[in-house]
């Protein structure tokens, strides 16, 4: 079984400042890692994913994340945020042995990113 911990339920940041949203996971097997974004009253949209290879993964909208196996972390970063980045962000994992999420994703509880002007 896997679990995902998003350490911050809310992160307020001033516009144009950098941000880091933290995600740690626990699993007895190798996993794939994902970050999704949810804008108000919408479904989830994939930001980026880590499958293998380079531990630094770049996604859409200027976001990137770094996989750290020793710390079992997959923190999301953006060097300069905009008002439009205000949303809920979810970290998720899937079991590699299941084919990458065929039996569903395990999500963290989410981090609400609040951009202040």
């Amino acid at each position, binding site marked *: 079984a896997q679990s*995902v911990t*998003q350490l911050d*339920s809310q992160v307020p940041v001033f516009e144009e400042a950098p941000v880091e949203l933290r995600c740690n996971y626990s699993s007895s097997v190798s996993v*794939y890692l*994902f970050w*999704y974004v949810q804008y108000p009253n*919408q*479904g*989830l*949209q*994939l930001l980026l*994913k880590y*499958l293998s290879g380079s531990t630094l993964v770049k996604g859409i909208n200027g976001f990137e994340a770094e996989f750290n196996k020793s710390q079992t972390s997959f923190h999301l970063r953006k060097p300069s945020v905009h008002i439009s980045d205000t949303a809920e962000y*979810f970290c998720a994992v*899937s079991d*590699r042995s299941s*084919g*990458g*999420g*065929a*039996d*569903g*994703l*395990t*999500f*963290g*509880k*989410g981090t609400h990113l609040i951009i202040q002007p």
Partner: protein
Amino acid sequence: DAGITQSPRHKVTETGTPVTLRCHQTENHRYMYWYRQDPGHGLRLIHYSYGVKDTDKGEVSDGYSVSRSKTEDFLLTLESATSSQTSVYFCAISDGLPNQPQHFGDGTRLSIL
């Protein structure tokens, strides 16, 4: 957007009534999922399907049943709705390959009074 349609988008009903939510896809993906989203809990898997008439339970399956008689449709049924099932329900689809992760519908907001 991936071709996923959830219906209805909003529903208010009373405790004890049956409720069925529908997810329809036009992508011909093998896998379909139902999640519920609650404040402080993120998304939790209710049931999923890996083919027509092939389904399995997720983390929070009690009180829910599902059916998939066609590739494109995945139904979630609350046989006798309870207030604890008030939530936002999301359908997702996937072809099961890791480089093609799950795509989500826009959700159904269900209120049970």
